[in-house]
């Protein structure tokens, strides 16, 4: 009974985090973007600085009619948002936020592989949506999504492999247990590659060619309305949370901090994740969209070689210090 309660509590906490954190990131994005552009952003919903704007958006989405285009492949069209969203929920389950058994939903032996594998599945949702919509813009979006995923999956994997090599384990808590502060400069190239490739996998600006709203009208999501569209948006923001959390755990030392590692470790994890999420928003406001060929070129001629160089460096240092 105690075990059941424990599992239920963990699942509940992860679920609440899964619902709350993306909204917090979304609201932060509203406000940060607004202030960077000399606006105020949402100010009315909820009273205090428009804190309830996304709740109001959610209510609006729920009220809208759920339209499926006549020519669409109905079942695939309706299934796609779930395929896009659920993997991030699963990934959130294994990200440790503090030391010990108590601060992670479920310890998985091959954590790095699990996380990358399941995140890759999420992109299938966008592909399904793009194909099933029976819309040429959606199909273009789906194509671009697939091309982008194929290009950026590799550097992401290689960068993660570098950390796994350094730690000698592929378990996420294991990697954090092995972390020392000097890993930060040692793995910094891998960290940048991982973060950039992750951004591209999430199709966040400046890598938002697949959803480019000003040319292919949000790509794979063109035909979606109401709750299903909201689920896709939620998937994007859940993806930001997951990516920032993963970068924190793999490269920035997770719960390790200059002080207060015992007891306050989870604060460090959340703080680093929040800073990275801010960077994600900042990049969106700062950089223009990359063209499709620039996207491919960036991945194959810059990120992949950098990741390989990082792996070589990791191997050399590992051999030297052991």
């Amino acid at each position, binding site marked *: 009974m105690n075990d059941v309660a424990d599992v239920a509590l963990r699942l509940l906490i992860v679920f609440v985090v899964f619902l709350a954190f993306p909204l917090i990131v979304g609201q932060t994005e509203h406000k940060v973007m607004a202030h960077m552009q000399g606006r105020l952003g949402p100010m009315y919903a909820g009273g205090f600085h428009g804190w309830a704007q996304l709740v109001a958006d959610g209510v609006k989405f729920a009220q809208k009619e759920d339209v499926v285009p006549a020519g*669409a492949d109905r079942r695939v069209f309706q299934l796609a948002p779930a395929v896009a969203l659920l993997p991030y929920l699963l990934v959130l389950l294994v990200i440790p936020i503090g030391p010990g058994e108590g601060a992670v939903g479920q310890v998985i032996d*091959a954590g790095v592989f699990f996380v990358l594998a399941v995140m*890759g*599945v999420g992109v299938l949702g966008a592909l399904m949506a793009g194909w099933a919509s*029976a819309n040429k813009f959606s199909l*273009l979006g789906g194509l671009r999504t*697939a091309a982008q995923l194929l290009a950026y999956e590799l550097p992401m994997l290689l960068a993660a492999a570098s950390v796994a090599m350094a730690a000698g384990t592929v378990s996420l808590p294991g990697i954090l247990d092995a972390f020392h502060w000097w890993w930060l400069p040692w793995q910094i190239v891998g960290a940048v590659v991982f973060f950039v490739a992750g951004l591209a996998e999430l199709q966040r600006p400046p890598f938002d060619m697949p959803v480019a709203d000003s040319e292919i009208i949000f790509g794979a999501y063109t035909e979606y309305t109401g709750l299903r569209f909201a689920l896709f948006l939620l998937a994007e923001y859940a993806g930001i949370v997951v990516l920032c959390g993963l970068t924190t755990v793999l490269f920035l030392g997770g719960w390790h901090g200059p002080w207060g590692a015992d007891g306050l470790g989870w604060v460090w994890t959340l703080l680093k994740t929040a800073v990275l999420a801010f960077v994600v928003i900042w990049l969106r406001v700062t950089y223009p969209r990359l063209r499709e060929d620039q996207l491919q070129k960036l991945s194959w001629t810059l990120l992949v070689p950098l990741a390989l160089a990082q792996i070589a460096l990791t191997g050399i240092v590992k051999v030297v210090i052991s």
Partner: protein
Amino acid sequence: MNLAAQTHGFLSPTGVEIAFLLVGLATFGAALVTVTTKQLVHAALWLVVTLGGLAVEYLLLTAEFIAWVQVLIYVGSVVVLLLFGLMLTKAPIGRSPDADSPNRWAALAVAVVAAAALVWVVADAFRTTWIDLDGTAAGTTRVTGEYLFRNWVLPFEALSVLLLAALVGAIVLSRKAKADAAGPPGRTATTPTPADGGGDRAPTPGDSDRAPTPGDSDRAPTPGDSDRTPAPGGGDRTTTPRGGDRSAEEGAR
């Protein structure tokens, strides 16, 4: 793991075994649908279910590492590549009348023979192997890694050389195709000079491939509509005329 280690009779299977059987049946069903469905993209999506079911089977066999690698490589990459190819060439919504191959009985025979050979070889090879279930689970990452890099280093390295050869082969093929495409004096061969000389973007050939995509091709579900493929844009992107501009742009970035 602990459940499986207990002794039990032939007709009193454990929960893990029941789950294994049920997942196996579901996987088999999904595989059947994959090869029999008349809708191309549905076949690819059922393939996802099949491969995912296989991953669950690996999990139930405590081969956790293999399970996640299966998801990562097959679901995450191979199927995405497959879908990309389908969307790029022909992905009609609804049934494809030409989805049936006249070779299907020969294909079935080959599949059955291949499956029989695999089952026979694996069963024969591991018939006398004694697996110790009391230690750490034999499929964990650590055990798999130690096994792989202590006992099977040579096959592992041979495989990686094979993959490298395939990689080099793919690059050679793609470069050759590019050289062939640029070789004959066609539409692309006439365009380079103005763009290289002045670098001006005014002439139409340079602009025509800037907006290659939507055009007027409607996404009609007819399988034979060839103008939906974004080939004209894709072909021009790799040729020289705009390459000069592009690298200049990127240098400025």
